[in-house]
């Protein structure tokens, strides 16, 4: 594969006396499908919050595509090409699905475009997600899978180089998981780098080129899926022995 | 020596005044801090309780505090009614807190009008053995005088606060209330009806209006619109203390009481509000969740 897209260099984050991340270092390569696993409270979400800019890391460096991200507000990081989804979907609930997608299109991927161009672009993404017919629907009546897809579609609408998917499959049925996986793989094949956080092992292992595992804020394992599954540390972290 | 004497007296008066403020705010700390209902009518309902106290004192000669205890159940029931209505129209449809704000504004006006129609617009006071007298003490060369009326207010407020704090910490119901604040889902999975919990918690919060009203008329003269003057204070105290923290509310009330008393003594009372609310702004700027606030900044 190719060069490093995201470099995480001894990143540390503390809340009061509690250390959520300690000295985490890793790299994500351009075009990679990257899995991030770990038990509850291991620091996965904190790490991606630090990458996406909702939190600022206390120590260490994050470098993305040549930009040093530390201290940069989240919206600027989005402009450099990072977007993310949320574990619990956070749609703009007073807007239609179409309008939800228009926000990243207007603010990130096509700044200065006319309303028609923006709408066309948003519609295009909805079509690729198979949600075109719901464009003018409010978000209130959406099913769980639709909410997840909207969350992904909105992130993709920003045309990111790196998409961080935070448990996009929690609570979905088996076929729905496959549907989401298919979407992610499709966009990866178009060149989008993807970090996937997931509890559903089957999905991560099937999806990822490479996986890291966090436990109690520390990186305990890194490697291809087959190695990770066999790793003793990972097993201990998950089984709590 | 004069300065020291003034300072000590100002601090004591501030602590006592803080107790009074705590009594006014503690119910709101539950309704607003734990349950997210922006009950703007809280101070006005306290005034309503104060008028009831006045009536019981004037007609039956009851001691104000005793009267306050007697009307507390009435306000508990009023709380049940208000929350049921509030839930029906707002919370059930997960309406924004903003709409609730307007609802409680409306409630404030309606309560005020009822008070005007029933009691008229004149100022009312009550009498009791502990009003208008003070306890004198000497600490070495320093003379300290403590007005009994504030001492009573402080004692009752302290009992109320500690009682509620223990109730919320130790009882199953109290823990359930805190859980409602954090995670409604988990609670309903445990087989507890979160709405019932919230209804009762709100009623308890409103029940405190009964005693707080009695304290109010013991401490200051009342008229129907006097509640509006305290809206700023009580919300400032709850927010300053940190939403959901009863002990934070008590500490914040003390801070505001001491600030008001010390500023009044040494710099002139007209600057007191600027200092009190300046403290609030300062704290919010550096600690967005208040003194003892936890977690999210809603």
């Amino acid at each position, binding site marked *: 594969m190719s060069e490093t897209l995201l470099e995480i260099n001894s990143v540390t984050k503390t809340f009061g006396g509690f250390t959520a991340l300690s000295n985490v270092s890793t790299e994500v390569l351009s075009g990679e499908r990257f899995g991030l696993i770990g038990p509850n409270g291991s620091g996965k979400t904190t790490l991606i919050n630090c990458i996406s800019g909702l939190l600022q890391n206390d120590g260490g460096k994050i470098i993305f595509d040549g930009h040093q991200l530390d201290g940069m507000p989240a919206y600027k990081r989005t402009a450099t090409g990072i977007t993310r989804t949320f574990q619990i979907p956070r749609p703009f609930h007073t807007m239609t699905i179409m309008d939800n997608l228009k926000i990243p299109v207007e603010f990130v991927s096509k700044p200065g475009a006319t309303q028609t161009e923006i709408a066309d672009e948003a519609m295009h993404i909805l079509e690729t997600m198979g949600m075109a017919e719901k464009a003018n629907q409010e978000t209130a009546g959406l099913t769980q899978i639709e909410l997840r897809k909207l969350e992904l579609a909105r992130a993709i609408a920003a045309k990111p180089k790196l998409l961080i998917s935070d448990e996009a499959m929690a609570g979905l049925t088996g076929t729905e998981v496959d549907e989401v996986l298919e979407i992610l793989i499709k966009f990866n094949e178009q060149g989008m780098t993807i970090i996937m956080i997931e509890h559903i092992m089957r999905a991560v292992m099937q999806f990822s080129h490479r996986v890291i595992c966090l436990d109690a804020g520390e990186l305990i394992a890194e490697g291809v899926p087959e190695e990770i599954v066999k790793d003793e540390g990972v097993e201990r972290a998950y089984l709590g022995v | 020596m004069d300065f020291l004497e003034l300072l000590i007296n100002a601090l004591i008066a501030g602590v006592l005044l803080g107790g009074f403020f705590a009594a006014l705010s503690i119910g709101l700390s539950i309704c607003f801090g734990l349950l997210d209902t922006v009950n703007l009518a809280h101070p006005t309902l306290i005034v309503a309780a104060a008028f009831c106290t006045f009536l019981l004192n004037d007609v039956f000669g009851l001691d104000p505090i005793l009267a306050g205890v007697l009307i507390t159940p009435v306000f508990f029931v009023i709380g049940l009614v208000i929350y049921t209505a509030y839930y029906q129209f707002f919370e059930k449809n997960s309406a924004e807190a903003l709409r609730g704000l307007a609802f409680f504004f409306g409630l404030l006006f309606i309560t005020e009008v009822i008070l*005007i129609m029933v009691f008229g617009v004149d100022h009312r006071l009550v009498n009791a053995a502990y*009003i208008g007298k003070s306890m004198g003490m000497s600490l070495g060369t320093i003379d300290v005088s403590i007005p009994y009326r504030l001492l009573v207010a402080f004692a009752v407020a302290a009992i109320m606060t500690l009682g509620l704090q223990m109730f919320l910490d130790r009882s199953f119901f109290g823990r359930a209330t805190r859980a409602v604040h954090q995670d409604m889902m988990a609670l309903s999975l445990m087989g507890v009806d979160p709405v019932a919990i919230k209804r009762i918690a709100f009623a308890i919060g409103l029940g405190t209006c009964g005693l707080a009203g009695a304290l109010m008329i013991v401490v200051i003269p009342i008229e129907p619109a006097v509640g509006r003057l305290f809206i700023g204070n009580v919300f400032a105290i709850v927010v300053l203390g940190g939403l959901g923290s009863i002990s934070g509310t008590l500490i914040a009330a003390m801070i505001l009481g001491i600030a008001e008393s010390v500023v009044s003594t040494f710099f002139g009372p007209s600057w007191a509000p600027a200092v009190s609310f300046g403290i609030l702004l300062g704290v919010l700027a550096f600690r967005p969740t208040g003194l003892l606030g936890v977690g999210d900044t809603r």
Partner: protein
Amino acid sequence: MIRILANRMRIWLVAGLVVSSVVLSGSFINAAQAQKGPIKVGFSMALTGALAGGGKQALEAMKIWRDDINAKGGMLGRQVDLVYYDDQTNPKNVPGIYAKLLDVDKVDFIVSGYGTNLIAPAMPVAIDREVVFMGLFGMNNNKKWKYEKYFQILPAGPDPAVGFSSNWFEAIKSFKPKTIALVAADAEFARNLKEGAVTNAKRMGLEIVYNKNYPPKTADFTPIVRAVNAKKPDIFYIASYPNGSAGIVRALAEVGSDAKAIGGGMVGLQFAGIMAGLGPNLNGILNYDFYVPEPTMAIYPGSSELIKRYQEKVKTEGLKTDALGYYLVPWAYAYVDILGQAVNAVGKIDHDAIAEYIHKTKFTTVVGDVEFGDNGEWTESRTIVVQYQGIKNNDLGQFAKPGTRKIMLPEDIKTGDVQPFNALR
């Protein structure tokens, strides 16, 4: 989609506006056909809000006046009607109310509501229409305007802020004071009173050792009283509103004070509810007043009968206003009475002539003889200085009898001698 709906909404909105304005004007049509009916006297009055206690009292007195004058044949042979609206003690409502009174209700005369800050916004309206404007308890409202048709009933003399407390400072001379402390509520009336008091204090050569204001929501006054005590003043002048007055009197009872004279401009101590509530704590306070049930007040002809009628009215009609009515009733009666007398004497509705007549006439009213100076204020100050004494309990009845509020000044109606504060505690 939204745009189309918004367009529809706009049409609906315009339609709504038209309908509501039609309804609005329709409700006023009947008011436009006035002229030959009764003479209408219009005013705004604080019937709700902070000053409602005074406002409601004043309104009842004015209704008594209306019944009286109508019984005597009315004004210019026509019956008198009062037209009034509640200003909610909010000055913002006042300009609109007076415009409504003059333009829509077509009242023949306007008089003011109760209180300085509710008179002030009505002044330009009166000046604009060049009509006579009678004021009820305004503190120097005409200072900037110098309007020649404004007359004001508060008996504070030609320089009201100073005149209001001049008798009080006269009364304390016997203590041979050297120092004074002053406290005022953060509100217009109290602040004006304090400024006048500062002038009087300086004239007497008193040293000002404390001079501060307190905000309306002050809950505990003991820090203020202690801070004043620390300065050991001979005199403690207080210009306060009802909440503060009651709070300070209580704080004085709790903390005590060695000042010889305490009080001065404490509004609210004249109100029945507060007097009864404070009871013996009032003893020793030296305060202003306008009317008290002392026998010498007989020089105000008809005043005690008026007060009795008011108290009867409150009882029989079950009104929720001040049970005693000493504070405002005679004055609210007098300010409309003077207008009535003047109009009947001039014999026509001619505002220039009526104003001229009021300027040059000495009126005999329930508040005694009244003369107005060039600025529309009384030519002399008739503020009464009273000292509370001999109050034993919280019974309201005792305040309706002579003896609890003895008159110290003016000399001609004096019923007692001023004593040091602590001598009466």
